[in-house]
């Protein structure tokens, strides 16, 4: 039985259904909408598992899912050496999001990472603690800033409503995903010109750690063949 992970909520789920059906594959959720399970019309031996998009990376890396749809932002944040654990099969063309660093718009002296680093030093001198950046993407942000040589900052965890963290006094800057930038603007933030950490979109991943029986392999191959037919 092939186990395919599908985001369980909202637009991402809807668009995933659409993407598959455009390729002649109809995902069907179990009779009860409340049950997080389903199957594919006309194809046996594929089980749909509905999960939060942020849990799909873990399930793929543990081999409990054979395939899964999620953003490459969460894949890269959650999985160390992700390309040894999962393989991207296809980018789905929706769920676009950029992981960026944003700062208050009234910081007219800050445009680039150079500025951010200089301001971090200034801030620590003045305030006695390190400039706080709110994010849930701890690893990606840390690696990005380490490569850029930005020092004297600290990460504060923010699992939601991150754009409000500065206004709410939790941080001086944020790192979060954005698609249109409207929410940032509404929260009086602007993006650093070279602060793009990652471009993300919904992607179909294959687990490199799960076991495929001979039969599962056949099912997987015919499924992938169908998906590729459209492209």
């Amino acid at each position: 039985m092939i186990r395919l992970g599908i985001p369980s909520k909202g637009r991402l789920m809807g668009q995933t259904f659409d993407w598959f059906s455009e390729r002649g594959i109809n995902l069907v959720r179990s009779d009860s909408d409340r049950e997080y399970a389903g199957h594919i019309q006309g194809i046996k031996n594929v089980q749909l598992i509905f999960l939060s998009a942020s849990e799909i990376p873990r399930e793929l890396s543990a081999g409990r899912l054979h395939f899964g749809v999620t953003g490459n932002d969460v894949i890269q944040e959650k999985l160390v050496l992700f390309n040894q654990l999962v393989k991207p099969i296809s980018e789905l063309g929706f769920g676009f999001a950029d992981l960026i660093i944003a700062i208050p718009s009234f910081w007219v002296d800050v445009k680039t990472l150079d500025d951010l680093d200089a301001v971090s030093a200034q801030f620590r001198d003045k305030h006695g603690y390190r400039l706080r950046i709110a994010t849930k993407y701890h690893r990606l942000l840390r690696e990005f800033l380490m490569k850029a040589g930005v020092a004297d900052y600290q990460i504060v965890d923010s699992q939601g409503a991150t754009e409000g963290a500065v206004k709410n006094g939790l941080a001086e800057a944020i790192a979060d995903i954005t698609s249109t930038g409207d929410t940032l603007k509404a929260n009086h933030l602007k993006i650093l010109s070279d602060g793009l950490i990652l471009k993300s979109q919904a992607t179909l991943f294959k687990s490199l750690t799960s076991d495929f029986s001979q039969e599962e392999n056949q099912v997987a191959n015919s499924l992938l063949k169908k998906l590729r037919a459209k492209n």
Partner: protein
Amino acid sequence: MTDLKDLSREAKRLAVVFEATGAEVVELDFLQISNVLLDLYGEDIRGRAFITNDPVYGEMMLRPDFTIPIVEQHMANSVSTARYTYCGKVFRRQEEFPDRPREFLQVGYEIFDGTNTEKADAEVFLLVNEALNGIPIRIATGDIGILMAAVRSLSTTETRKKALLRHIWRPQRFRTLLNQFSGLSSKPHPTQDVEDYNKIIDKFEIIGSRNVQEIKERLLKLKLESEIDPIDPEEVKILDDILSLKDTCTVALSYLEKVSKKMRGIEKTVDSFAKRLEFLEHNGINVDLLDFEGSYGRTSMEYYDGFVFGFYSEIYKDLAPVATGGRYDALTERMGQGKKIPAVGAVLRPDLTLLLRENNHD
């Protein structure tokens, strides 16, 4: 698989070399309060250390090294002369290299003593060398102190020097700044005058702890920076030459002595280098064969600010260093809240020395 008995025998064998000096043997708690380490290393330490939470103390770390807590303890208790040695496990998260061990033994030695710093440098180096006797080893040495002195003696503003010194352990950012300050690349521009900013400030919502005053200060600072001359290319050249210096200690010394005639600010540190070499030579180290690298210790040895060294396997090029050490005077000041004392130390990896010893017999 390493036999644990062999490993503990090897650790003991290294430890006795340091204990024989009469150094005080210290033991430390596994769990350390995170603040000190975070203040020192910044966020990067989170990628390297195991972090946990205590309901009372807040964030705590499984000790990623011994040196910092030892410095902290020493500075809290006294600033007298002391020699410490330790043997115990440290813990490291491995994100980039999952094959490396998460916990391993360290044997180390730290000297807090300002009477003769060059002699203390040599003492640590010689003890490590003695402990590693019989293992085929490549040795690298350097001196961050000379580098820092060269930066300090640039004829430019204190602001620029401070910015460069802050990034001495981040070579890439250091280079970016140096290029900007020497006119080789463009630098952040003052986006506007403070007066203009005053006019538009009402348009913005003021949020967060960084206030308008701080922004105005930085705008002024950027304006000043844009108006001062680039650093003299001659001086940049000297700094570059020191950074790329790679030769034997003897050749490096004679080169640096020549340079210090032009750049007087480094004279004292070069003298120290010469004295240190004398002590080493006097104790049987052939400094004509000992390597010196001007940039050595800049990437992985944050907080060292003087003599630095590393012992590496000659056979396994990818193996982590078997021993590393160096001088960290500034660290004692930072943790001593006003007090300071010159200090130097080293740390060895018994798991690696054992591996190399066994390999050597085969």
